[in-house]
């Protein structure tokens, strides 16, 4: 038996208890989702027949399409907003010494500590004052702003790994600071920006409390709120639809993870610590 094969067996054996625990809720989700309506309440592991049509019925019954679209819209736009604000700020933090720099960093650190739950009343008044209530864009704005602290901190430590010499060389060759930034620096920063963007995207994709407060009409609901509304205080809960919706909502992010897993590990390592 080769050494690698031995390692493989040991590694999977050691991981197996954890994997069972991790996979368990997904199994519950999936199995409930494919149970026929009459069998949902029976705690059997296998349904008597696989009701694939739950996935089709779920779509209109849970208003899934619009909620999916809203989630994508909010997650993408808030990420873009956060990046537009934080890339220059992170660049400045990393490349320039200026008075107030330390203060700004501390402000960002502290602002990470506020839970949306703690701020929700104040935030709500802010959104009303801006006239953005029940507008998906209000959520974009709040998520984007909340993400700024994390993205700036992460980006600036990542930027520290990009050598200065290259920009300085460009200046010597007569490029303007702006040109050096766009042509030399940004291409090198793209991996960092990608990783940061993924984090911001996931946080927006999963956020609950703010969306719950700011969005009031079903047309503007994002996925977590939509799914929550199916179980919260209803007189009857259609668990097979809820689970089918949850399962489908999980797939896009799971795919992104599988695809970008390598970059995430590296990006988080550099971004989180420096």
């Amino acid at each position, binding site marked *: 038996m080769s050494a690698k094969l031995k390692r493989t067996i040991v590694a999977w054996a050691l991981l197996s208890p954890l994997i069972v625990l991790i996979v368990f809720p997904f199994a519950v989700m999936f199995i409930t989702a494919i149970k026929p309506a009459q069998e949902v309440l029976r705690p059997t592991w296998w349904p008597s027949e696989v009701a694939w049509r739950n996935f089709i019925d779920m779509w209109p019954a849970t208003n899934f399409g619009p909620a999916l679209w809203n989630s994508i819209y909010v997650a993408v736009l808030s990420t873009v907003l956060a990046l537009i604000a934080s890339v220059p700020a992170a660049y400045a933090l990393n490349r320039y010494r200026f008075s107030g720099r330390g203060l700004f960093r501390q402000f960002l650190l502290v602002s990470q500590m506020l839970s949306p739950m703690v701020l929700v009343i104040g935030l709500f008044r802010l959104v009303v004052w801006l006239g953005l209530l029940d507008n998906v864009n209000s959520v974009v704005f709040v998520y984007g702003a909340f993400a700024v602290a994390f993205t700036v901190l992460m980006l600036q430590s990542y930027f520290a790994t990009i050598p200065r010499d290259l920009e300085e060389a460009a200046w010597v060759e007569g490029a303007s600071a702006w040109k050096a930034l766009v042509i030399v620096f940004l291409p090198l920063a793209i991996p960092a920006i990608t990783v940061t963007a993924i984090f911001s995207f996931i946080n927006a994709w999963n956020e609950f409390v703010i969306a719950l407060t700011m969005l009031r009409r079903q047309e503007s609901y994002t996925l977590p709120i939509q799914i929550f509304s199916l179980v*919260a205080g209803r007189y009857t809960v259609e668990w097979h639809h809820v689970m089918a919706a949850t399962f489908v909502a999980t797939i896009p992010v799971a795919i992104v993870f599988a695809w970008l897993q390598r970059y995430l590990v590296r990006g988080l390592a550099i971004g989180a610590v420096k």
Partner: protein
Amino acid sequence: MEKHWFRGAAAAAALLSATALTHAQTLRVTVAEYSSKTGPYFEEVAAAFEEAHPDADVQIEVVPWDVLLQKLTTDISGNANADLSIIGTRWLIDFVDQGIAAPLDEYMTDDFKERFFPVFLEPSVMEGQTYGLPMAASARAMYYNKTLFEEAGIEEVPGTWDELAEAAEKISALGDDIAGFGLQGTEIETDVYFYYAFWAFGGELVEEDGTSGLDTEAGYDAAALYKSLIDSGATQPGVTSYNREDVQNLFKQGKVGMMITAPFLSNQIADEAPDLDYGVAAIPAGPEGDRGTYGVTDSIIMFENSENKDLAWEFLDLLFTTEWRQKFTAGEGFLPVNPEVAEMPEFADNPDLKEFTALLPDARFAPVIPGWEEIASITSDAVQTIYLGNAEPQEALDGAAQEINGILGE
């Protein structure tokens, strides 16, 4: 720079809210989501209304029940509430006290008033003014599983709590996963489930002297009864993890002999467990023959700060026509609040509903007290403590009563 930016934003915001005001014909309606049918129903009403009022734009905001109060609170605190909203009638006093709900009497003609059963209109009358219209009404009655009754050899539906206890033990003896009496022990209305027995033993939530009635013999007896049901295995195990929906699910699966709940369970059974052989009966009486069911209404209110009160009223007028009421009441499985609807054969000839309507004379509504939600929560906590066996009934209920008296005295 900073100042300038802020001023710009403020101006933009002002502009936005100004344009919102000039759209005088937008009507926002917050509705509670009772079931998956609620949203589509109100969209349909809105469409019909917009057809009759081409210049009006009705926006329906469907809110899950669990977060309705939170949304209303944030909305009002941000001065961004809708024009109309459904609320639990038990919250109404807070809305009236703070001048948030608008009185509706000036709009209500005698003709309009006659559309309602007075008993349902009453809870929304405060200081001689009507502040809400009953949107949904339900009372509670006992559902029982006829098949289980037969298997256990029970011939008569229990009429008193003693008989219920006896029957429940017999049914529980049928099998490990069968329970005689389904007892709700967590989340919304845990306190109400306790009141069913409490009222039967002659208890009053608020005594004549204005203090809590929990620390009376009625309270101790009712709690001791439930606790003995739990201890003798006459209820499902682990009652404190079962909310209303969970107990109903047990009933639908035929695993529970008796439970007390609202008429909408009949609709669910028809959809999900059509083969279940069940009956509906009155909530058992106490030793002195007292009995009480919980009456609940949800009201739709108009906000005092609404810019479109007349239009809002017209919407209410449409909402409470017989045709639309029939559709709502049948779809959600509530009790008819309008005589004309109640006379329709589908309601008048429904044996389940008849049981509920027969109970209405005994119906008690949540008392009109500011801070009712907190009182309900204190009561729920106390009964949970008793169910868990962490405190004796008297000790837990005395403590709860003391806390409640603190709120009542405020």
